[in-house]
């Protein structure tokens, strides 16, 4: 019952848009949704990663996740590669981490694509519905990083 056409790129930006910069992943995904550079890719903005994404992830040619990070300097963008099929450790329920999502895809649907996590360093996670100026400036950089990753793997 997957809704991602096999071989297409899947981009998922996630976070809480009511917690200021925590929503940067969703902002990036929302702006990429109409970006012609990602024509043919499936771009989603969600609150959090859930097990239901695993099936779609398994069908994708590449999975690019966009998330906020407190471990990256504010306004900086870091691209990490996640090992396929790794990360079966953490016990989870309705929320999963990136590694568990990949593990579920691998375990249940037999395949997991290359996975990248684009992390945007954040400044404020307080109550608020907009990004800090420095983080807003990082959004186009993160968008470019996503486009480059998708282009590298192709998504036609």
């Amino acid at each position, binding site marked *: *019952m997957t809704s991602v056409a096999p071989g297409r790129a899947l981009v998922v930006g996630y976070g*809480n848009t009511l917690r200021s910069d925590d929503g940067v992943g969703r902002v990036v995904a929302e702006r990429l949704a109409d970006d012609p550079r990602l024509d043919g890719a499936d771009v989603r903005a*969600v*609150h*959090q990663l*859930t*097990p*239901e994404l*695993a*099936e779609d992830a398994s069908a994708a040619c590449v999975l690019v996740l966009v998330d906020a990070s407190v471990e990256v300097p504010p306004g900086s963008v870091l691209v990490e590669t996640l090992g396929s099929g790794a990360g*079966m*450790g*953490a*016990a*989870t*329920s*309705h*929320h999963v981490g990136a590694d*568990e999502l990949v*593990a*579920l895809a691998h*375990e*249940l649907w037999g395949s997991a694509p290359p996975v990248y996590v684009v992390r945007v360093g954040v400044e404020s996670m307080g109550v608020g519905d907009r990004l800090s100026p420095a983080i807003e400036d990082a959004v186009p950089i993160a968008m470019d990083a996503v486009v480059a990753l998708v282009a590298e793997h192709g998504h036609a």
Partner: protein
Amino acid sequence: MSQTIVIDPVTRIEGHSKITIQLDDRGEVVDAHFHVTQFRGFERITQGRPVHEMPALMARICGICPVSHLIASAKAVDDIMAVEPTPTGADLRRIINLGQIVQSNALSFFHLSSPDLLFGFDADPAIRNIIGVARANPQLAMDGIGLRKWGQQIIEWLGGKRIHPEGIVPGGVAFQLTPEVRDRILAGVPEAIAAVDRAIAWYKTDMLRWEEEASTFGNFRSAFMGLVDRNGNVDHYDGWLRVVDADGKFLADRVDPKLFNDYIGEAVEPWSYLKTTYWKPMGYPDGLYRVGPLARLNVAEKTGTPRADEELEKFRWRVGRIASSSFHYHYARLIDTLNAIERIEELLRGPDILSTHVRSVAGINRNEGIGVSEAPRGTLMHHYKVDDDGIVQWVNLVIATGHNNAAMNRAVLQVARHHVKADRLVEPMLNRVEAVIRCYDPCLSCSTHALGQMALRVQLLGPDGTVLDELVR
């Protein structure tokens, strides 16, 4: 010397809580409490807001069951506007509510509880999770993920968003249903039913392993409450309140839900932020009753859909007409899910489901309104008072987990008495005390979760608060 065991936090439930178990001088369990340690304050912070904002605000109470609060809130505002939703609007509300029940029941059974049932309560916590299930029984894991996805898609397609949808509004719904969406939902029905069928078959085969747990997990006589339709069958959206006792005798029937205050009282205990409701005619604390999937099956004549009724007949043959053990919430939850799926199909095939008349419009015509519906975890009540301009003056929420609070405390006490050994702190005891809480699938209304990743801390305290023993997981 009396002692207290503290389990903090309780894992794999929706929210934050802890459990304390009080031991007497001989080391025997004398009392136990399920503490809800988080505070929300929605009843207060919504005061002063225009009442038409209430459904959207109330949806923010929970990221798991926002639809339940949307439904009850919209019905309360309907009442204030003295307006009936259009028939199609009401049916679309029913469908989205049933989608919510499917996805939430799937979360509870497959994601949160099936690891215990599959691996056993004494298995290594490192494998007792959905990823462990994926390795040991991939079909079970895929069925859980698929059911939850289907339920969430219904919410998204009809409500606009999966989490905190906006499609349910006072007077009906915001969006009319298109033939494409109807057909997409219907296309998923056969697989959803097949998934629940497989889970029920697996559960029935496996349930004999858990006879001891079924006899000690909240196995006591109590009343049950739920909504029923004109035929006395399960109704998840509307109808009348029915309350039965442990023998199935009616304590109340055909009660207008708007009169719930005449029958239900609320008590406050100093050790928890969660209110405890009770059946007024029996007083507090004797007026303990249960709500949710098990209660829905116990109070109703039938579910009202063919396949679920077949399973209900088998359920009653196995566990009795009135199931008294809270362990059977798991089994009941699967039948409740099957009933919800069948009901969704039935409603989608209705002749007027694509009607453009989905919302009634009105202004402020009353200063008080009550909305009641069945949430996945049980009966949910919203009660508002507004001024003549529709500004909210007072709010009271009576939630399913509050109805079950007294029963959960009693269940914890029963399990603790059966399993707690005062001279040591061991995993099996912890697992079972936590697991009995999960039977009720309590929702403590947190909107962000990292469940299963929390540490489990158990402390054995002396009467002066000194830590005598500690176990950390």
